[in-house]
């Protein structure tokens, strides 16, 4: 098939690289691990402290305030009760904690990266293929090294989720900034805007709908990783799905799967409605 003398492998180099990382930077990874774990546990704690009905009130208030649709808002607010009814509430909160942690870190890294991409063309050229790689590389490939570097449990799960969910917010921040109409930028410059003022007063506000769509996409991507993350020991809804697959307990798997769907729909609608609110009036 393929000429034999053309073949070469990087497998060994990759193995050596991971080994080398493990040997020389163990303390660094431990530190990162502790940091993420602390953050994750704190978020989980807060999520569990909040009573279940308060979530529904929050969802309803946010949706109704932004969309003014009573029935849709009510339906979406009541939907999460299903998770509680299946006795999966605590597990759902654990998954949500992993998702939220990954999303927060994604935004902290992603929005500045997106801004840099929009400002510096050569940076964009370098970053774009990396983002493609992050989104298309099968997640199991980096799941294992993540586990080797950070141990079993929730921290590698957060990192694996991060790799998958980071690209959309970077991309959409970049796109939003690049699509700001040139005549508006020009007018702002003509009135003496510095580069920083232009970014703060004009470009970021005008890119906001796109950035928030990025936040929404990132959250959805993070949710999609819930089941995969459970394979390296992150408890939560994914673990429930995994268990029921192993036991061929279709009904139990369905309940857990449905819970993930409910979470995804509610979070999607809430973040989307907030994003809409930011669109400039037309």
């Amino acid at each position, binding site marked *: 098939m393929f000429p034999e003398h053309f073949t070469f492998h990087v497998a060994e180099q990759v193995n050596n690289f991971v080994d080398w990382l493990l040997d020389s930077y163990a303390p660094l990874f431990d530190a990162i691990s502790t940091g993420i774990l602390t953050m994750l546990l704190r978020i989980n704690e807060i999520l569990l402290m909040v009573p279940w009905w308060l979530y529904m009130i929050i969802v309803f208030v946010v949706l109704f305030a932004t969309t003014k649709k009573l029935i849709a808002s009510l339906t979406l607010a009541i939907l999460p009760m299903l998770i509680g009814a299946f006795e999966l509430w605590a597990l759902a909160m654990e998954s949500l904690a992993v998702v939220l942690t990954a999303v927060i870190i994604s935004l902290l890294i992603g929005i500045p990266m997106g801004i840099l991409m929009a400002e510096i063309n050569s940076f964009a050229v370098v970053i774009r293929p990396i983002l493609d790689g992050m989104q298309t590389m099968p997640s199991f490939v980096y799941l294992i090294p993540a586990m080797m570097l950070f141990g079993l449990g929730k921290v590698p799960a957060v990192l694996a989720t991060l790799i998958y969910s980071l690209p959309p917010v970077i991309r959409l921040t970049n796109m939003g900034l690049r699509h700001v109409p040139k005549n508006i930028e020009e*007018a702002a410059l003509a009135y003496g805007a*510095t580069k920083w003022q232009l970014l703060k007063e004009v470009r970021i506000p005008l890119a906001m709908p796109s950035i928030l769509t990025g936040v929404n996409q990132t959250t959805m991507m993070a949710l999609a990783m819930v089941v995969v993350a459970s394979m390296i020991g992150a408890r939560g809804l994914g673990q429930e799905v995994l268990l029921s697959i192993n036991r061929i307990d279709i009904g139990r798997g369905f309940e857990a799967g449905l819970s993930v769907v409910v979470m995804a729909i509610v979070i999607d609608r809430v973040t989307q409605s907030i994003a809409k609110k930011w669109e400039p009036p037309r």
Partner: protein
Amino acid sequence: MSGIKSINAISPVVEVKNLWKVFPKRQRSKGKKTLNIDVHDEVTISQMEKDGKVVVAVRDVSFEIYPGEIFIVMGLSGSGKSTLIRCLMRLIEVTAGTIKINDLDITSLSKKELVKHRRYQAAMVFQHYGLLPHKTVLDNVAFGLKLRGEPKEERYRKAKAAIERVGLKGWENYYPAALSGGMQQRVGIARALVMDAPVFLMDEPFSGLDPLISRQLQDELLRLQEEMKKSIMFVTHDLSEALRLGDRMAIMRKGSIVQIGTPDEIVSNPADDYVAAFVADERRTLEKTKLSLGNKLASTPASS
């Protein structure tokens, strides 16, 4: 020409000398953004133009704008007039020549000085308004003052006054999208007014509006100018507009100024066939304008 000689005694606010803007044509290879070209080497330039390597948007342009006058730059689209007005704000970097505004050479300013120039020396009105869709009318008008770092109360007080002057009182809290084109341009004018800069740059401000509104705004501009006496550079492709507004006008063609003079001089004494063709088409409009101007002059002395 006697009229010009008499104002020549006053020093000009804007003084443009031998200004050139040569755009390199975008090539597939990594072309340098700034083009090093000797504009005095006419042979090379015309050769490069012929080869399609460069576009000369502004060619050896010189003119002055005196205090309190409306100076019209007229030409067809593509004649370089929009490029020229942008050079005065240095929204476009010039290739050669000098631009002095109040005796300060704009072409040699550092970045910091340039920002200051844009904030204090000149204010610009755009054809496409360039309003910020996410800010209210009030915030749009106050925008330049905010960039300057003026305190909130101060800039809102000034902005409200400017909004009232352009006849938009009551619309402060609306967003630009809720306003008609004419009203949006009023906001654009208020935004420039509020800066209280000595020089006003207007790039086809009324071209996108329907004729009636456009005329209305022309009258309004004349009324405002009566009070404020700015030095205005007004770019347009509409001869009747130019004749209505202009104290003096320059006609541009392919980047060069072909004639500068008062509207009367240009119409009665066109410098070449191009200008002649330009004004011949509009002669009838001119006659009408003159007539209405005559009527106005006859009726105004009582009030002023």
